[in-house]
């Protein structure tokens, strides 16, 4: 086989392999981070009926990962109830909301609603923290990093551990 032929075959292989490319999940990491964040947050009221309610709004691959993760894993000693909804009225008694990228257009509406309650809001979309989402995850050179809107979280009735703040990028709200 000539050198030229070898490179043509290699090129075809690389292109073919590229076509087979699958989405590599970063959501395992993000789900683990969501669970970890809850360890550093204090909610003002006892969690109702011994169930920690975690809601996901919008379309996200995170749903499947969260379902698998919280089959038997507890948050703050409570069983976790997962709520997948787009209806804000379903959210009055939840403890944590993950807001998907798909909700970018209605983010202000969602936050206007959640601001009335001690609900931790988490996202993974650029600019969410600026809007007032409490914690926003992002990818930095293969690491998951997170930013915290300190003003927003201080305005809520939630208490955040300084240990969580110390590793975060602190963001101020767009006022």
């Amino acid at each position, binding site marked *: 086989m000539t050198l030229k032929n070898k490179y043509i075959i290699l090129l075809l292989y690389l*292109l073919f392999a590229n076509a087979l490319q699958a989405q590599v999940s970063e959501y*395992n*990491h993000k789900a683990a981070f969501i669970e970890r964040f809850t360890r550093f947050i204090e909610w003002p009221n006892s969690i109702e009926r011994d169930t920690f309610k975690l809601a996901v709004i919008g379309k996200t691959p995170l749903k499947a990962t969260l379902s698998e993760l919280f089959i038997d894993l507890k948050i703050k000693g409570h069983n976790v109830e997962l709520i997948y909804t787009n209806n804000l009225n379903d959210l009055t008694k939840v403890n944590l909301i993950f807001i998907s990228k798909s909700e970018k257009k209605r983010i202000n509406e969602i936050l206007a609603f959640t601001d009335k309650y001690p609900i931790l809001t988490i996202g993974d979309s650029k600019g969410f923290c600026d809007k007032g989402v409490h914690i926003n995850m992002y990818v930095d050179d293969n690491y998951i990093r997170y930013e915290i809107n300190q003003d927003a979280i201080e305005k809520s009735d939630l208490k955040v551990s300084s240990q969580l703040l110390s590793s975060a990028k602190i963001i101020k709200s767009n006022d």
Partner: protein
Amino acid sequence: MKIFIINQKKIIKCILFSCLIFLSIKSSGQEFSDTLKAKDLVQLSFEELMNVQIKTGTLLSIKRSKVPSALTVITREEIENTPARNLVDLLEVYVPGGSFTNHWLGPRIGIRGVMSDQNNSFLLIVNGENMNSQYEKGSFFEIINRDLSDIEKIEIISGPGSVTYGSGAIGGIISITTKNAKTSDKINIGVAHNLTYRYSLINSNFSVKKKKFSVYMFGSIGTSEGIKNPKFYYVDRAHGYGCGYMSETWGYKGLGTPAPNFYADFQHRPEIKIQLDIDFLDEFKFQSRYTNFSFIKLQQKINSEEGPAFPGFYGQQFSLSLNNKHNFSKKTKLESNIGFQSQNHGEIYLWQRDNKPFNDITQRRYSFSENQIHLRSILTYEPFDKLKMAIGTEYRYWFYGTEWGKAKNSFVMNFAPTVNFAVLDSSSGFYSQYNKYGIVTLIDDPINANQISGFYEFNYMPFKNTTILFSGRIDKHNLAKMAFSPRIAFIQQLNKNNFLKLIAQQSVRLPNFRELYAIDFASEPTPEPERLRGIELIYSSVFLENFSVNLSTYCQSVNQIGFTEKNRSEIIGEFNTAGFESKLSYKLNNFNIALNYTYIKQLKWDPEYDFNTYISNIGIDSLDIPIIDAGKNRINNFPQHQLKLITSYKINKSLYVHFNARFASKYGQADMLNMFMSAHDNYGSLETQQEMSNIYNDLLDKGYSKSSFTSNISASYSFKLGNVNLVLSSWVMNLFAVNNIRYVYQFWEEGNNRQYPRQVGFVEEPRTFGISLKAKF
């Protein structure tokens, strides 16, 4: 004479292969280890979770708790808040057992008993690129730059690491990751001033982040006047006969001069850093970086035609690289890199003293550029949860030429005999001045070299909690023997938070290009590389998120390369050491504390040469005072015990305080002093005994070889002015200090005459005050 001819076919193949890879790939999602499920990840400590993708020291992504090395990570927050003049100061604060001495030619890094007359036992990596100077200097750039605000983190591996990064990492790896568009604010402007070292700097960065495109730019400039009249203690009988603090009254021959300003810019060359990063199409990264520095040699002034001046040296470095990280599938990914580096090296030695101007070519020891082109690819395949593998190849090609923009007749490069000084042009003033002494070689052919390397890593989990890591690297330099660096590591997860790691490995260091070229030129047999063979046991544990323990014990053997009287670096003997390192860390809300203790012991020294020397007091008396087995303590530049404390406390949202302290005892430096004292006592005249006794007592009075303590403190206050976030910091180095002296590097040459303890010397580093202001937009 053998001159290497470039194999153009090979280069074309490599370039073609790399281009093919770059051209044939499209964008993909971010790369993440898919073998770790969310359920596994929630078991990790917070620190581990934040560092799931850590890769320093391995080819494959691996959890930090499983990294088969003693790893220290210095974070951005720690860099910003720790009082430090440069990177080597940070290393001394954070790395268990890490320390440094001052050579006449700059700082010399020491970890685990490994310290050389050049920093070529350590590899300096910047954003994954090996930035070592191959000529002879090793880790030369970046280590004394004052501005560290462009650095996101520094990872340091204590001990051997050439299995991952190639020849040179006998003593350790220093891996710098710079900030980028994702980790920095949009606009930052910072200024800093050190009142004692009289340096000022200003820096700024700017970043733009778009969906498929981001740009990060950083620039800084700084100048340093250095410490005026530093307390530089100097003992020398060969060049002026004196002892004491360097000053105009130093020495008995009237050859004293004021001491050089410590850490001042040489010839007022400002220190500059420039960085430009462009990320595009998700998986491509273009990086370019320029840094420079200069250093005034620690010695007396020397005459030149323009009057007395201090010799010194400088370096400039420029690099370009294009990186691609591509996921072919969930299980297969490829990292490719193509890059170019160029380093300028210049040293003004003042050989001709007052016969020539300071900058005349005949005053130089060297003036050249070292240039490198490299290609690298690593293919990672993770077919099962239990098995991961990586295989890679690298090609590096070096060529040497004049300093940037200079004429061919300005080139001077100092090689080992028989080349000695090389010039490229017979019209060179250096050639006409020194050729008559037979120490200059006119080189007609290109000066170049190349190396091809292959490396692999297999990560296999035979049982649920057991990982076995097989790694290896083969380097073939065209002027050296093939070097093989294998490693095997067993990692046992004892329970949720406890890990036990057993690592056995060989790490190699090829001789410097300075030696390799000269040996090849003389058609002498190809030299052996330096080999470190070591075994290490590490235990790490995390309790309740807050408390972590890392214990490490190691035993290593090196066929040590040293500088000999032949003006060459050669294998001088077998040197075995053992040591223990511990690190305890505790975090509670806003308070962090870490305590490191390290111990090192020399087990064996089996020299190749008779290290017998004698003191010949030229011009003073005719005594030849023998010192038998002179260089027998090979850890003579280290304290045997080091205890380091690092604390930080975030008092409130605005105020942050950092404090660190270092206690060291049983300094190996005592050995040389005692050896000289004993030799004089046994063989000296009454006159020399009295002289030596005076030197000895004076040194002890100054704290030489005694236990030492020093401490540093800083405070940062954050506040807002309009829309701008400001951070005002101030710091004090050596706040409380006892016997805190910075030793001069001690080394022994086989068979050389030595007058008194020639390499005994130190600088008393004073209490230092600094202040900085940073604005974030």
